[in-house]
Structures are given as structure tokens and as C-alpha cells.
């Protein structure tokens, strides 16, 4: 590569400026386009983001901190993390299993399975919530049976976990399927001819290949699990300090005229999102590095 550049330089010495400029548009057009993009990003993403922190801190650090250590806020944070801690691993296991099945095997009903996996993407979260209410609510199909056994699903954490799982169901699988399909099954076949058993094949051949895609799926799944509002709102019952997740807590505070506290809680959610984004960037960077290593 380095050699290539050196040659081209020596050949086209009279116009060195051309080399650094891949496009031929005049500077004004380029700056206009860049300006529009930056303006758009600022208006749509950056400004609202900053607003959250500014509003949260409007009444000073004390109000901000007291909003964060408020028992209801702490319990909302705990519930949000608990829900993500249950929903994300389960959906990961399922996602790997499903994408393995879909990418590496052909069978009848494969496209039906694919559509089923996509279903949560196309169903509105509110409807997802109502589905669980109809199923597990006291007037629902399974409600009376559960009630006799003293089990509470909706208006309690299990219902919130179920609703979150439903909504975040496709993220890992949808990330892995195209990747696994592109990779094909040759490597697994080679491993099998060398006498490797199923789990060994998965562990030493398939998993290393999908590692980064899987992480990316995980990150997306987690972000959605922590931020889900609609489906959770329906099955939560809004009991403070008990079945309120962080997004619901933010709404409640806002409705109580506690705007600073509400934005403080929102900024907490935002921090979780930023952490997730950071993790995502790290994964992307690693992937890019790995691809470069492969090409080099």
C-alpha cells in the first residue's frame, strides 16, 4: 500500500493537492453539506441530550442527587437492571439457538420460524403488553389457575420480565442470522469430519466466528430491555417502589410536577444508554480491527 502511494506521487507530482481530496465538489458545497449534517445531529440528538442534564441540574446538585437516591428511584433502577439481567441472557441463548438452526440447517417451516422471530418487531409494544394481560390477568385465560396457586404474573416483576423479553426477543437472533448465513457451514463440517462432537464444534468453531456479532446483538438487546416503556407500562400496575421501572418512574415524576427529579432520573437512564453505546463502539472497533487483521 505504502509503495503504491509513493509511486502515484512520483508520477503525478504537479498536482499533489488532488490526492488528499477524494471529491471534486467545490468547498462551499462540501461545507454546506457538512453544516447541514452537523446542524441536524445537534438539533435531533445532541440538544435534547444536553437538555436532559441541564433540566436535571436546574435546581442544583442537591436536588439532582436526592432524586437519584430517593428509595423509589433506587428500586426502579434495581428493577430495571433485574429485568435486563434476566431478559438479556435468556434472549441471547434463544437467539444463538435459533440462528444456528436457521443458518446451518434447512427444514420445513424455516421461513415461518423466521417470521415468528420478527413478530415482536412488527407488533406495537402496547399490544404486546395487552397480550400478557389477556393471558395472565385475573380475567385472563391462565389468571384463575395462577391465582389459585398464589402466583402473580402481571402487575408484578415476572410480567414485566415477560413483556420485556417479548419486545427484545429478535435482537440477538436478527443480528446473528445474516452473519451465520454468510459464514456457511464449511468450517463446522470440517470440524465434524475431524471427529469433533457437537458442543466442541459450537464452542471452538462457531462461537469464535460469531463472537462480535453476538456482542453487538447483546448490546442492542440490553439497551432496549432497559428502555422499554409501552409494553411494561401495561403490565406494571405502576406501584411505586415495587413495579416501576426507570422509564415509568421518569413519567411519574414528570406528572407530579417534579421536573428536576424527573430529568435527573432520565439522565440516569441516559447514562445507562451511553454506557451501552460505549460498549457498542468498543465492539465495533474490535470487529473492525479483527477484519483488518484478517485482510492483512
Amino acid at each position, binding site marked *: 500500500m505504502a509503495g503504491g502511494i509513493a509511486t502515484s506521487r512520483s508520477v503525478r507530482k504537479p498536482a499533489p493537492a488532488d490526492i488528499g481530496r477524494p471529491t471534486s465538489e467545490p468547498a462551499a458545497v462540501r461545507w454546506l453539506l457538512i453544516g447541514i449534517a452537523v446542524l441536524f445531529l445537534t438539533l435531533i440528538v445532541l440538544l435534547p441530550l444536553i437538555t436532559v442534564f441541564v433540566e436535571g441540574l436546574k435546581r442544583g446538585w442537591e436536588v439532582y442527587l436526592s432524586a437519584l437516591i430517593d428509595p423509589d428511584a433506587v428500586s426502579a433502577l434495581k428493577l430495571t437492571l433485574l429485568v435486563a439481567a434476566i431478559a438479556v441472557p435468556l434472549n441471547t441463548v434463544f437467539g444463538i*439457538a435459533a440462528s*444456528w438452526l436457521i443458518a446451518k440447517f434447512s427444514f420445513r417451516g424455516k421461513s415461518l420460524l423466521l417470521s415468528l422471530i420478527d413478530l415482536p418487531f412488527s407488533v406495537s409494544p402496547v399490544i404486546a403488553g395487552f397480550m400478557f394481560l389477556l393471558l*395472565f390477568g385475573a*380475567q385472563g385465560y391462565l*389468571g384463575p389457575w395462577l391465582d389459585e396457586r398464589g402466583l*402473580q404474573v402481571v402487575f408484578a416483576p*415476572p410480567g414485566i420480565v415477560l413483556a420485556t423479553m417479548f419486545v427484545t426477543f429478535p435482537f440477538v437472533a436478527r443480528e446473528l442470522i445474516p452473519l451465520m448465513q454468510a459464514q456457511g457451514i464449511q468450517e463446522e463440517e470440517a470440524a465434524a469430519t475431524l471427529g469433533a462432537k457437537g458442543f466442541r*464444534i459450537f464452542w471452538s468453531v462457531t462461537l469464535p466466528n460469531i463472537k462480535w456479532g453476538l456482542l453487538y446483538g447483546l448490546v442492542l438487546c440490553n439497551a432496549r430491555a432497559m428502555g422499554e416503556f409501552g409494553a411494561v407500562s401495561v403490565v406494571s400496575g405502576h406501584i411505586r417502589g415495587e413495579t416501576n421501572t426507570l422509564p415509568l418512574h421518569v413519567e411519574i415524576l414528570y*406528572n407530579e410536577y417534579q421536573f428536576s427529579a424527573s430529568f435527573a432520573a432520565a439522565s440516569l437512564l441516559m447514562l445507562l444508554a451511553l454506557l451501552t453505546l460505549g460498549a457498542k463502539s468498543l465492539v465495533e472497533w474490535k470487529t473492525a480491527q479483527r477484519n483488518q487483521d484478517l485482510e492483512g
Partner: protein
Amino acid sequence: MSKRNSLSKWPVLLLTASLALGLTACGSGNNAANSAGSGGAANAPAENTAANAGATEAPAPKDPVELLNVSYDPTRELYVSFNAAFAKYWKDKTGQEVTVKQSHGGSGKQSLSVIGGLKADVVTLALGYDIDAIAEKGLLNKDWKGKFEDNSAPYTSTIVFLVRKGNPKGIKDWSDLVKDGVQVITPNPKTSGGARWNYLAAWGYAQKQDGGDEAKTKEFIKKLFQNVPVLDSGARGSTTTFTERGIGDVLLAWENEAFLSQKELGDKFEIVYPSLSILAEPPVAVVDKVVDSKGTREVAEEYLKYLYTDEGQKIAADNFYRPINPDIAAQYKDTFKDLELLQIDKDFGGWAEAQKKHFADGGTFDEIYTPGSK
């Protein structure tokens, strides 16, 4: 051959593994619910104490108890203060710790949640009909109204207008709401208790003006709702629409909600009392089925009775609900203006009839309101 076999076993195994994991997680989820005290506490007291760190000192006189009060939208602040006062009272009286959890939303929606399995020990809703609906499903006695004094309504309220400072549109009475160019904010009568009181107050006013000509009354209400740009699902949503988003010229609000927005948001708003309004009696009830299964009947009943004490009445009045105790009401007579009030039982034949006539499917509200019509 062997290659295909070893590969094809795997998806099955993985799926089984994920299922097994799923079951374990569900199990732990259920435990969490139990320890939180919301679900099925009756069947598993042992599990409860084991999982609940706070409850482990079993030999103490009485285990801490938790109540869930499912309420409607504008009572948030009222019950925050009231719960604290009651917890203190109960602790002094019995030595038992009591925590009252709150859940708020549109009255009709909250009633549906309780019917759907939300384990409320007590319900404190915007109108009797929403509690009747719960009684209908057998969760509490149908004669719940007779259980506490004054039709089980420990405080009352009414419907007033909240307008922007200086009252730029000059809104004085219901008749000003149907004028062209006036935007009225009210929640949806299908989901909000407050909105149903709004609707009936407007109906009562129109009926009086028109001398009982129902066609004219409907025309009036129809015009009024043509002036409504957004129908929120609960009273608090409407208040934020009016105060925060700045939509509309007049908010039809609970008197307490109007006072509260003035208190919270400064004097950007003025309260206007119409010539006629309605006496709103937000009732309270113990949900028999839940308290009996949780064993919380005694404390739940005491909780509601405490609303009738001088202390409870004062807390209600401080949160802008009209106290029913005449002595306490006299102390607050500067806050609450006297005005002519319609009564649901006398003027509308009770909630069951009002609900059927106006708000059930095919009622007058469905007749006059078509979404998006202008």
C-alpha cells in the same frame, strides 16, 4: 452420515438448555414478586419472611405490613402526606410498621387493572361507578357504599375552570366554552373519572339553560367537545397538556388539581368558578377478596377510617379536597368557595344510570363525539 447427526442434535440441545434456563429465571422472578409482598402472600408466609430481609425478626410483636392503595390521578400528593401520617398513627397505636404503596392513573383504567389482577388492598377512585365495576367481578361486596360514612366518600371536590393569567378569552361560565375559537382541555370520559364529572356538570348546566330539552343539550355538549383539541386518558395528563405544553384556553379540572397547579407552577393561571358545578364524591373501599387473602383487613379498614378523623380531614383539606367534616370545613372556608352544586344521585339518578346513559358504548358521549371531527 455421522457428521449430519452430530450437527443436528445441537439445536435441540440448545433449545432445551434455553428452556431450562427460562424456567429457572421465571422461578426466581416469582420469588421476587412474593418477597415484594404484592402477589400471593397468603399461601407462602414462610417464603416471604425468608426472602424479605426486613421481616426476618419474627419474634417482634407484629410483622411489618404492606398495603397497596390503587387510586386515581390527582390524589398523588394527598396520599403521600396521608400515608406518612397513617403510618405514624398505626405505629403509635399498635407498634406495627405499615408501608402503603401507591399506584395512580386514570380512574377507569385503574379500576380495570384491579379487575385484571392488580392486588389492591384499598381502592380510592374518582367515582362510585369504577368501584361498582370491581364489585361486579366479585372482588368486593356490592354494598360497599354503606361501609363507611357519607357514602364512603371521605372528601369531596368539584369541577372548576383553570384559565391563563388575566383570563384573555374572558371565560366566566359554561356558555363561554362553546364559543368559536375557545380551546377546551378535558380528559376522555371513557377512561377518566374527572372527565365524567366534567361532562355531567356541563350537561347539567345546559339542561338547566334549555329547560330540559335534550336535543338542545346534546347540541351544546357536541359544540363543547368540538372545541377540545386533545383528549388525554387521565386528569393529570390533561393538566400537563394545559400547563406544560401550553395547549388550550381553559382546563376543566378538579378543584384540587386546579389549586395544585397554581401552587406548583406559580400564578400563571387563574381559577374561575362557573355559576353551576357538580358535587364530586370520590369514594373509597376495601377490596375484600385481596385483604382476606393477604390477611390485611384490619389495617386496611383502619386506613380508610383514618381519612375521616380530624387529622385525615385536615390533610385532605391541605391538599385542596373539600373535607366532609363540618368543623374542619369551617376552618377552611376561605379556601373553598360556596357554589351551586348538582348531585349525582339527585340530578342524574346515580352513577349506574349516568354511566349507562352517557358513557357506555352507544351512550350520549359516543353520539356527540367523533374523533377528529371539527
